[in-house]
């Protein structure tokens, strides 16, 4: 049976992990390769790297990092953040990324999704969608969630699926950082409306939240950052608990 995936997310700036991390035995928690390796060895099903470098220099460093991660890591990983062209994606895939996440660039120019799917295959095209509720309806935001658009989350999700996205990474801005659980209602609607996998993001605080994202939110995968970085939740323990609750999980 296809299992639900647990995905730690690493924020990268100038080739280093940002946000605090407190694994006890890590000498250099800022090194994304060391951190990625640790996650791969302790049960992560996949990894996501989000680049928040604003400078060209930072972007170049990212490519080196991707190459190093690909050399060391034996599980799949996605790279996203500021990806805006076929050339960007080509470079990241050539450097060993398995999938690439696009966000703002796809909103500005939706045909990009089709171009990527045609050239590289849907399996490596993840469309990241940041959304929050405005007057009761879910509106897509761009530029790291700083700019609202008129796009409705569910309509946009269907559009990206039609254009050839292989997967959707949905971050609820309302839930992100709250540690109060994922946006399960919106997730369930997305998962039912779309015939491609949905990754839940934003709001993980406890083991129960993951359970809810899978059972209520019908998510195919759940992504989190700080609960893993700070060791609040141990991935193996999380996965064991989920399995005890009859959620299909790889152990």
């Amino acid at each position, binding site marked *: *049976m*296809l*299992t*639900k*995936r647990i995905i730690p997310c690493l924020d990268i700036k100038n080739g280093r992990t940002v946000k605090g991390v407190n694994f006890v035995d890590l000498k250099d928690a800022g090194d994304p390769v060391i951190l990625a390796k640790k996650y*791969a060895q302790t049960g992560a*099903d*996949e990894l996501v790297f989000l680049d928040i470098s604003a400078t060209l220099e930072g972007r170049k460093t990212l490519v080196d990092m991707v190459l190093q991660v*690909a*050399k*060391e890591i*034996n*599980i*799949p990983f996605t790279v996203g953040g500021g990806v805006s062209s076929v050339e960007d994606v080509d470079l990241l*895939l*050539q*450097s*060993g*990324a*398995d999938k690439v996440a696009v966000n703002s660039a796809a909103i500005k120019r939706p045909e990009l999704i089709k171009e990527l799917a045609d050239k*590289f*295959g*849907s*399996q*490596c095209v993840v469309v990241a969608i940041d959304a929050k509720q405005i007057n009761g309806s879910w509106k897509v935001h761009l530029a790291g969630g700083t700019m609202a658009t008129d796009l409705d989350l569910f309509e946009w999700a269907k559009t990206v699926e039609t254009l050839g996205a*292989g*997967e959707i990474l949905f971050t609820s801005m309302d839930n992100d950082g709250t540690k109060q659980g994922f946006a399960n209602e919106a997730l369930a609607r997305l998962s039912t409306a*779309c*015939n*491609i*996998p949905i990754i839940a993001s934003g709001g993980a605080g406890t083991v129960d939240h993951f359970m809810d994202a899978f059972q209520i939110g019908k998510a*195919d*995968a759940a992504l989190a950052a700080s609960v893993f970085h700070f060791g609040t939740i141990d991935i193996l323990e999380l996965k064991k608990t989920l399995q005890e609750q009859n959620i299909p999980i*790889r152990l």
Partner: protein
Amino acid sequence: MKVVLIDYGVGNIKSIQFAFERLGVSIVLSKDPEIIQQADKVILPGVGEASSAMRKLKETGLDALIPTLKQPVLGICLGMQLMCNHSDEGNTTGLKIFNTEVKRFSSDVKVPQMGWNTINNLKTDLFFKLKAPEYMYLVHSYYAQNCAQAIALTEYDILYASALQKDNFYGVQFHPEKSSRAGEQLLKNFMKL
């Protein structure tokens, strides 16, 4: 030991190269028929769409060469699908090494299947030390139908062949290069065939 990864211009082959390097095996990328023929082991990778991948194999004449190879050959993902009779993806005639057809998953399930699923009914030494149900990483929209040459089975919306074998030819639908320790074991096993 000389391992050649057939380079015919499809998709991301870096991860396969790196996976072998992690095992201490250096790998040669080539589309040169002579180099491929002289290799101890041959890998046929593949990511992307079947008909365009097949076209690339034909352009280089590799479509005729591959079925004549005598050393162990491992097709991975689309590489395995191209070794079958026919794929519904782009109505593509395959290399006809494995006597089975490649079909698309129904819309009763999410397509592509993406993530870790179990492989079962394991046969041959390719799975030495691996015990069913073993988890492997899969990303695909099309699958090979179960047949007499199946050496591993996986269930999604249907029970299908996740690995195939005929003589010296092996094919796996999953990505051993991305399947953690189980995948590494499989690659080690392939090296010993």
